[in-house]
Structures are given as C-alpha cells and as structure tokens.
C-alpha cells in the first residue's frame, strides 16, 4: 500500500514537472523561482536610472505586485489589482506580456546585450503575447479573442484588433518554446499616449499620488525619445500571481553635460508609497563608462549602497526612498566631466530588415545581419562551439504573400545552400483573409562571419474594397521580426545583499534578442474618387458593346429588307408623318416632292447651315448691342 502511494506520488511529481517544463526553460529563469512563497500580497517600487552613451538618460520604472496563490480573504485583495486577478482567473492565463511602445530602441547606442536592453527593446506599437493553461487549440483561440477585448477595455487601446485570426499567430519555438498554447500578436500602428498610461497607473496601489510613480510627469515622459510601457504577469500554483509593471523612457536632458532627477521629470521624489514593501532608486553606471576613466562621471548625492556586478563592472548606486521626505527630496545629479563616444554591449550580430524592389507588384523582404566584431569580447557562453545560432521569428500579414521557397541566404557575400545554414525551420504559410504567415527559423552561422543576409520574395495581394482604410493610405505594416541569439545569455549577477525584484530579474538567463524595424509596404491603392468614373465608363462601354452585339446577332438582313419594302407601301406612323409635314412646311416644299428631296438631300444641306449661321450671327450681334447699350 505504502509503495503504491509512493509510486503515485512520484508519478504525480514527474507529471507536474513535465507540465511546468516549458516555463522553466524560458521564464522560470526570470528570477521568479527564487522568491520564496509570499504569505500575503506585496508591492514594491523601484526606479533605475542609467546614463546612456549619447548623453541621454534611461529611466526604468519597475513595480511589482504579488498575490499569494490562495488569498486568505477569498476574492478580496488589499494591494493587488482585482481586475488583473479576475483576468487571470477567467482566462486561465499562465503568462502574459503586454507592451505599448513609441519610438525605437537604439540597439547601436543604448546597448543590445545587457539584460536591461534585452528586456526594454520592444517593437513600436502594441505587442501582446500570452500563454494559456487550456488544453485545446480551439479553446485557446476563443479565450485569446475574449482576452484581447478585455485588455482593450482595460487599457483604452485597440488591442481588440488582435482578435481577428489574421492578426495573431501561434509560434512554437521562434518566440518562446511552448506546447502550442502561446498566442502572439502585434499592432505596429497603435499610437501610445496618456490614455494608456492612466489605466496602467490605476493598477498601482498608490497610483501616481505618492512614491516613485509620482515622478511620472506626463509632458516630461512623453517628450522622451523612447517610451515603452509594459505589463507582464505570471501565475502558477506555487507563487500565485506576480505582475511586473515597467515603464522605460529614454530622456534627453536639456543640458547634455549634467542632469538631475528634478530636471528630467520636473517633479521631486519626496517619499515612498506607504503601501510599498520596498522603495528604491538605483543608478547604474555601465562598465564601459567607468573603466576607461574613473572621472568621466561625477555623482552628486550620497548613495546608500554601492555595489558592482561581478563581471561587467557595472556599478549600482542604491538610494532608499524612505530616507527622504518633503523637506529633503531625493535628487540624484550626474555631471559628465568629459564628453566621449562609447557604445554599450552590442548583440553579436546587428540585425536590420528592409524591403527590396519597388512598384506595386512584388518585392522582397531582406534581413541583414552585420557582425559587431569589437563587442563579442564582452559576451560569454561562446567558447563551446564555433557556430552562432540565430533564431528569426517573423509574422507577415496575409496581403504580403511571401514565397518561402525563394529563401536565399548569403553569408559573407556568397550565396549559401539553405540546407547548410538552416538548422530548424517552421513555416506556417498565410491563408488569404484567414491567417498570417509565420516564419520561425533557426540558423547556424560560422563564428567568423562578418555579414549575412536573407531574402524572401513576396507578391503584394489585393485587398477587398472594404478592407482599405477609408482614405488614401500610407501603406500597410509588416510587424517587427524578432531576432534572438540562443547562445548568448545576458545576465548580471549582483551580490545578494541587494534584495530587489528588479535586480533579481537581471540574474535570470535572458536570451539576447532584438527587434527589427517595422516595414511599410505600399499596396496598390485605388483612388476612391475613381470608381464612380470607372463604373460610368465601363457601363457605357459594356452597354454599347452588348447592344450592338445583340443587335448584330438577332438581326435577319433579308427579313428586314422585306419588312422595309412592305413598310414603304404602308402609311407611316402618326408622329413621323407630323414631323415630316412640319418640316416640309418649314422648308416650304410641297408635299408630293418631299419624298424625293428627302432621299437626295443630306441632313446638313447648305441652306440649313446658312440659316443656323445667320440666326447665330443675329443672336451674337443682338447680345453685343444689348450689352454695349
């Protein structure tokens, strides 16, 4: 009996492990698993400031709320947003990430392979993906549709456009390894504004009335060069629900050489949110800025703690917000002593995507990968084998009909057989007006490669007339592709003395990835004032054509001649008779001679022309005289 119980327990354990495996592979590493199971709801707020090499400043707000798996209060919550909890419960969401982004993350200058930029770089517009805890595909699709509508209402955005099956896809491993329960959709055209921020702030216990969120002065943060607002949630039986709300803005200080928090946000940080468990501000100085010359940057203000990352020598200055009050606001000030051009850690390959060709008929999508040679020294996990793996995930709307067999791969200026380079590929071709095309591709490039390029040809499809935007449009968007490098892990390990959910998430094994540009495909745009003209013209031409065609086909020439002969004998109809009488009277011709003259005279006889000209002349002269008098 005991052995039975033991076996079943073991089975159960294995089974549960199997179920949770994909999470462990991907996100189990994001630092969540290390947190001990909390007894009650918790909230913590953090802000990370980071000077960027082009004298801009990255401000990264990070709010974490956790809810224990079984709330002691039943359906009631103290701190945790109820709407999110309901969402998770109703749609059985395992993981979800929603991002609103405006502007582009500059991978060249702001870094591409450190955890912060890997997490911050998001495609322009809205991106939403979710993992569901639902077995069948149909149910997942239905749930996804409902979820988009709920989120759309919750965040005042048109996320509901992701409901249509033409706009979302179900990648298997290109985006995130999963068992087919992942749905991914992006709206590159969605504009981001305060109306999206306000509902996002409502999820925070203190909103923006107190604590770090009070720094969020709308004009200041929307003036930035990059603005990405995210909500990421994860729920499972062990940890309950965890939501991370992050907002990353890249701001341009007015004075390039020196900035302070007050100058950046036009507000002062006067204290923590009373409900927050911890409230901290970090200042991270990248290793490259420090190691070259210690005196490039000068900090004004006393930090509570200074720690270094174990590998990259990035330095973290920690400020505890609870120490500050209205009398003494926290104001970190940084002065650049020397202006210099440095760049942060680059991704192993710099990816860019562009369209080739011109015209309305066809074109090609090209993804070009350029090696960033000098930066590879900063990356690790590379010494094992001499192949760099690159995963490309790309969703293409159906009206861009990609021919996947035309995939051509160029490595260092020579065309390569796809078999040699492609390690794994998964293609879901698009279906007109049903589903978008999805391409997941794992490529293997030699380490010494300098550049590579991939091209895919496509035809531009025709939309139905009501699928066009009402006015002449700019073109249609192809959402950003995701290029990730599974061999390259971005992580930073800080001493355990800092307990911070933000820095904890740095510890995870995050894969280096970057999003490419959104592409604009100009499709054939009908001039919508033209249909009227076209319809009129075509109808006229068709009517003329069919009229004469039918006429020719049904006409019997001999019969008509016979008819005409018999008609001659008969009397003409009343109206023609009248007309001929009147015309004869006008002409002054006797009735008996009318028939002869009719056949011999052309319609425009010289007399008629003369009369018409005479009358016209009289009219013109009369008008002239009348006007001049």
């Amino acid at each position, binding site marked *: 009996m005991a052995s039975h119980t033991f076996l079943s327990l073991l089975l159960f354990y294995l089974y549960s492990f199997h179920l949770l495996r994909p999470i462990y592979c991907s996100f189990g590493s994001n630092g969540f698993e290390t947190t001990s199971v909390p007894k009650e709801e918790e909230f913590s707020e953090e802000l990370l400031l980071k000077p960027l090499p*082009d004298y801009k400043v990255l401000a990264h707000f990070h709010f974490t709320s956790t809810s224990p798996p079984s709330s002691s209060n039943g359906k009631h919550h103290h701190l945790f947003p109820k709407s999110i909890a309901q969402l998770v419960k109703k749609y059985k969401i395992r993981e979800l990430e929603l991002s609103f982004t405006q502007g582009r993350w500059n991978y060249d200058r702001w870094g591409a392979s450190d955890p912060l930029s890997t997490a911050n770089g998001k495609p322009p517009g809205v991106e939403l993906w979710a993992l569901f805890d639902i077995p069948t595909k149909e149910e997942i699709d239905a749930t996804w549709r409902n979820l988009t509508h709920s989120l759309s209402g919750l965040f005042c955005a048109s996320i509901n456009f992701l409901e249509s099956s033409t706009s979302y896809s179900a990648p298997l491993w290109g985006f995130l390894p999963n068992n087919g329960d992942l749905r991914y959709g992006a709206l*590159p055209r969605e504009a981001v504004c305060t109306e999206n921020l306000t509902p996002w702030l409502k999820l925070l216990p203190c909103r923006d009335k107190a604590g770090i969120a009070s720094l969020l002065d709308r004009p200041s943060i929307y003036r930035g060069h990059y603005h990405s607002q995210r909500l990421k949630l994860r729920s499972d039986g062990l940890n309950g629900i965890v939501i991370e709300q992050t907002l990353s803005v890249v701001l341009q200080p007015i004075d390039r050489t020196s900035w302070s928090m007050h100058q950046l946000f036009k507000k002062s940080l006067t204290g923590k949110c009373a409900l927050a468990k911890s409230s901290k501000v970090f200042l991270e100085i990248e290793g490259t800025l420090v190691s070259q010359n210690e005196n490039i940057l000068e900090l004004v203000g006393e930090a509570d703690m200074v720690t270094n990352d174990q590998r990259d020598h990035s330095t973290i200055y920690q400020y505890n917000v609870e120490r500050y009050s209205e009398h003494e606001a926290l104001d970190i000030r940084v002065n650049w002593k020397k202006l210099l051009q440095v760049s942060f850690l680059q991704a192993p390959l710099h990816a860019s995507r*562009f369209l080739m060709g011109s015209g309305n008929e066809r074109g090609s999508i090209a993804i070009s990968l350029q090696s960033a040679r000098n930066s590879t020294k900063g990356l690790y996990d590379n010494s094992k084998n001499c192949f760099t793996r690159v995963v490309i995930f790309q969703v293409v709307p159906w009206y861009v009909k990609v021919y996947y067999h035309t995939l051509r791969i160029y490595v260092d*200026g020579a*065309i390569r057989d796809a078999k040699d380079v492609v390690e794994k590929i998964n293609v879901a071709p698009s279906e007109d007006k049903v589903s978008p095309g999805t391409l997941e591709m794992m490529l293997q490039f030699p380490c010494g490669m300098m550049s590579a*390029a991939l091209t895919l040809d496509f035809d531009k499809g025709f939309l139905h007339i009501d699928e066009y935007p009402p006015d002449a449009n700019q073109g249609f968007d192809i959402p950003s592709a995701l290029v990730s490098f599974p061999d390259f892990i971005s992580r930073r390990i800080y001493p355990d003395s800092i307990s911070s959910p933000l820095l904890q998430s740095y510890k995870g094994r995050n894969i280096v990835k970057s999003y490419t540009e959104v592409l*604009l495909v100009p499709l054939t745009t009908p001039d919508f004032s033209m249909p009227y003209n076209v319809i009129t013209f075509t109808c006229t031409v068709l009517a003329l054509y069919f009229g004469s065609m039918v006429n020719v086909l049904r006409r019997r020439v001999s019969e008509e001649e016979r008819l005409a002969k018999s008609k001659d004998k008969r009397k003409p109809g009343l109206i023609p008779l009248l007309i001929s009488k009147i015309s004869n009277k006008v002409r002054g011709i006797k009735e008996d001679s009318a028939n002869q003259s009719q056949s011999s005279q052309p*319609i425009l006889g010289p007399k008629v022309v003369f009369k018409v000209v005479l009358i016209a002349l009289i009219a013109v002269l009369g008008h002239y005289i009348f006007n001049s008098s």
Partner: protein
Amino acid sequence: MEVAEVEAEVEKKATATRSRLIVRLAALLVSHSTLVSVVCCLAGLIALLVLPLLAKNTYISENALLPGSANPVLSYQHVTQANNLIMDIMSIADVKEAPDIEIPKLIAKYMEILGAETYHHKFSQPQNQFHPLYFFSSSPNSPPTLANLSYGTSTVGIIRAPRGDGKEAIVLVSPYNTQNAGGIDASASASSIGLAFSVFSLLSRATWLAKDIIWVASDSRFGDHTSVSAWLNDYHNPNFIGDASSNRIFKRAGTMACGIVFKVVEKERREKYEDRDVVTMYAEASNGQMPNLDLLNVVHYLAVHRQGIRVRIGMFGGLVKSHLVRVLGEVMQQVGRFARSLNPDWRFEMPSSEYVEGTATLASSIYSQALGVPTGPHGAFRDYQVDAVTLELSPRFSLKNEHTRLAFLLKGGRLIEGTVRSVNNLLEKFHQSFFLYFLTAPNKFVSVGVYMIPFAFLVAPLPIIAASLFNLTSNRNPWRWLHTAKPLLITHTWSVVVTLLPFYISKISDLPSTHCMLTWAGGSLMALVILYIVFGSPYSKHVEWRLLKAVMIASVSIGLCLMSIINFATAQIGALFVVPMCLFALPIRVKTNNSLIRSMVMTCNLVMAVLGFPVTAVALMQGVIKGFGTVSILEFWDSMKFLWGWNSATYLYLVLVHLPCWLLFLHILFHPCH
C-alpha cells in the same frame, strides 16, 4: 472590322431606305471626311495654342501638408555652423592633394557631430550601354563593379526621428563635385553642402520629426544623376554577392516619402538685373512622369509667400523673342477682350506678354516631357515611384561675400526646412490625382483633362479618313485590305530591325558617332532591300494606294494612341508631324481634275517627305527649341544615344511609329497607280 461594317452599312443605305441613326451619323461623317478632318485639325491646332489661356492656378489639394503653418526656426547659429563647413571644404580644396577623399571624410565628421548615422557609398560610372529590351524597366543599372579605379564617394547621413517608427524617410540630396573642388563655382558647390548641413543640423534637434531624414551628399563627378541613381539602386536592389558587399555598411530608413534635391548655382552676371534670389524647379522625370503637383506647390508657396524667393521653371527663351508668338499673343488678347465685351463672364482675356511667357514655358514643359529624359537627379527617384523635385537656388549677390552668403543660406535653408516640415506632416502618400499636367508658369498648370483635347482633335479625323478611303476603293471585297497588310508588315518588321541595330553597332565598335550614324543608315537600307527581296515589292497589283493609305492611317492612329498612354507629350508632338502626313499623302502619278489643288498638295507632300523623316524632324524640333545655328543632322546618332541612355520611350516612338509612317508615306507618294 469596324470600317468594313461602316462600309457595309453605306452599301445597305443605297438599297434600304432607312437605317439606324448612329450608322447614318457615321456615314455622314465619312462622306464629309475632308471637311471634318480640316475642321478637326484646325481645332486641334487652335486648342493647342489656346492652352496657356486655359491654365488654372495651382492650389494645395492635400490639407495635411499645411505649408508655412509653423514659423521657420532655422537660425543664424545653424547657418554659421554650415559656414564653418563651407570654409573647411574650401580650404581642403585649396590645400589638400586628394579632395575626393578628404571632403567625404570631412562631411561625415560633421554629420557625426550632429549624432547622425553616417556611411560612405562608393559607386563607379555605369556603362552607358544600349539595351533595347530594358526599356521601361525600373533598374537599368547593372550591379556596380568597383574594379575600375575611378569611383565616386557619396556621404550619407541618417537622422532617426526621435519618436518615429522609422517606416518612412525624407531624402535630401545635395550634389557637389570633388573633381572640381577648386574650380570656378567651388563656392557655390560648397554652399549646397552648407545649405544641406544647416537644414540637417536643425533637423537633428527637431522633436517634431515623424519620418527619418536621409541626407545624401552625392559626389557628382559623373554627373548629378549617376550618383543618386547608384545610391537609390543600392537602396532598393542591394547586391549581396561579392566581397565589396560584405564590408560595405549600407544603412536604410524605410520607404521614401519624398526626395528633395537642391544645389546652389552661382550664375554669371546676367544682363538682366535680379532683384531677388531665384529658385528654379525641375520636375520632369523619365518618360514624361511628373512628381505630384502638391510637392511643387509647397515649394512655390513657401518660396514666394514666406521667403520672398522668385520661383522659375524651365522656359524657352527663344520663343519669348519670337515675333510669331508675340503676334499670337496680341491676337489672343484681342479675342479675349472681344469675348469679354460680349459676355463679362467669359474671362479668358490675358495680356499678350503673359501669353508669350506662358507659351514659352508650356513649350519647354511639353518638350522636356516629350524627350522622356529627366531634367535632374530627381528623375532617379521617380524610377522608384518616389516623388522628387530638383531645386536650383541661385543667389542674388555673390557668395564670396560672407554676409550675403549667410543671408542666402538662411533663406534657402528655411525654404527647405518648410518643405521638409510639410512632407513630414503628411500622413498618407502623395495621392491627389495631380500627376499628369503641364506647367505654364510656376503657379499655373494645365491639367490632363484640358491638354488631351488638342490631341483628341488631331487624332479624331484619322479613323474617319481611313473609313472614307476604304469606301472609295474600286474593289468591293470586304477583305481587300488584307493585300495591303503585307507592305505594312514589311515596314514594321523593318522598323523593328532598325530599332535593334544600334545595339549591335554600339557593341562591336568604338566608331565615332558619324560612322555609327552611317553604319546605322546603311544597315537599315540593306535590311529594307533584303526584306523586299524576300517578301516581294510593296506595289503588287492588288495594292491600291487608297487602301495603303487607309491601312497606314489605321496603324499610325493605333501607334499614336498607345504612345499617348506611355508618354503623352511625345504623342502630342508626334501627332503634329504625323497627322498632316497621313492626311495629305497622295501619289505623284495620280490624276486629278483641279491642277491648282494638286500642285499645292504635291508641294506639301514633298516638304513633308523631307521634314517627316525622323532625322530631319528631330533636327527641326531641336532647331525650333534651341536655335538653328547649333543643329546638324549628323548629331542624330548622339541624340538617339542620349535617348536610349536614359531609357526614353521617345526613341521607340520615333523608330517604331514615326519611321514606318514616313516609309509608308513614301510608298504612297511613289505609288505607280495602275
């Protein structure tokens, strides 16, 4: 078939007493074909001459452009920075030994200071080869080979719009010549770079940008067009194969919304005193394509109403002085005045001087479109369906003086800033239907609906004449035209051979152009003789001259209509030559009653036989436009080479439509009339 139908109807008319109205109308037209054709041709000519009166004022039809709604913010600070760059370029040109390497470096350095992404684009001179089958193709350039030692280097800088999504870009192009860096107009050349830099430095700080900005400082050592076209080709059709591509950095910025090419040209002191800075707009791209009129309107509006710069467009100076045009202008003025006195609502009175200028501008507009050769580097953009315009700015005072240079840069910079800002406002493509137009003044245009009328009048009599000729023939068989199809086929086969000959001539030899011309002529003659030997003489028993003429007219009208779709202006000018030829053609040996009319028609025929020959026709056109002193018939080869170098469809028209028409005309002229 239609002709046969009409003819059948006419026959029937003799027997049946009544037939349908439309048929009777057609028969009426055909029976009065001479009157109709004379009236139509005259109406066509008059309509052509009246076009300047019918021109409408331009207006900005796209509201989103909002030109001039924001005050220009380009300040002296930007201009002074630009001036430093100009001074640096000038000093490099004076001192350094290799300005073609140093100047791109210098420009790149200045761009990088602004925070732009920069790279150099190297290109070589394309082989100007004749590809008869590459007409209308968008990418005439073969992949560049950097093997030759001589290559140009353009410097490209990109500003990413701070909050933009990078889907669209506005391209600024400023050509400069490194080879001539120390030359006479060096200060003007450097000033175009300076002008671009001042705008670029402003835009690099602009927070309102929605589209990325690309500045191409193009090296114009092989001509302005070559560098821009090479860069655009690499932008749209990159070549991934080869060593050069792996090392080359080429950055892009999305779909191009618009291209603005500007250069500063310091002209010699003209006799006419200029009281303002002048900007000259060039818009004609290959094969008569035009950018959207809104783009020109924005530039014109900003230049005239905001910056006080005078706007000019291409104009034939010779026509302004021509007495004929002046007399026409006077007549038009009188007619307009008379019409107005009849009815005050008829306001097409126009001062004769304005008419003369309008005519000269319209002639230039039609001619540039008809030639099918772009008038500037903007033509390269149009090949990729991007609207672009070339602005040539010429200052009022000399650029040697620093103060006047700064003031000029400020004005020009603000003009370009305003244009960029307008295009940046655009949420959609340029889509309003103004792509087909002629300009009669910088702010007046003739729309397609109006300028089609003269052409329609000119072409309308052709089918009528053909039908009437068909009726007049003695043979009553409805398929009788088939006999004349043979000479027509021979002529057109010959014209195809003539079209393709230059390809082989240019391939086999490095002959001077006179020799090439003679080879071409000889080859063509030989081809004609061979075709006649193979297919037999065109004057067989069944070939009546009337039928031949009818068939010729039919083929010509098809050719003209097809050409009017490809390049309307070419068809318009071609119709002026071809239509009289079609109407007047009469065999020398034909017997008529009226000897006076016959002798007049014969004289006309002989004159047309000479003038209608494509070689003389081209010489005549160029003579009318540029003055007869410079024209020589032997330059025909060069002008044809010029045409096919630019992939102009005008070449095809000349050889495939005009030449067969002329040959058939000769056939009719020397018809034996048995």
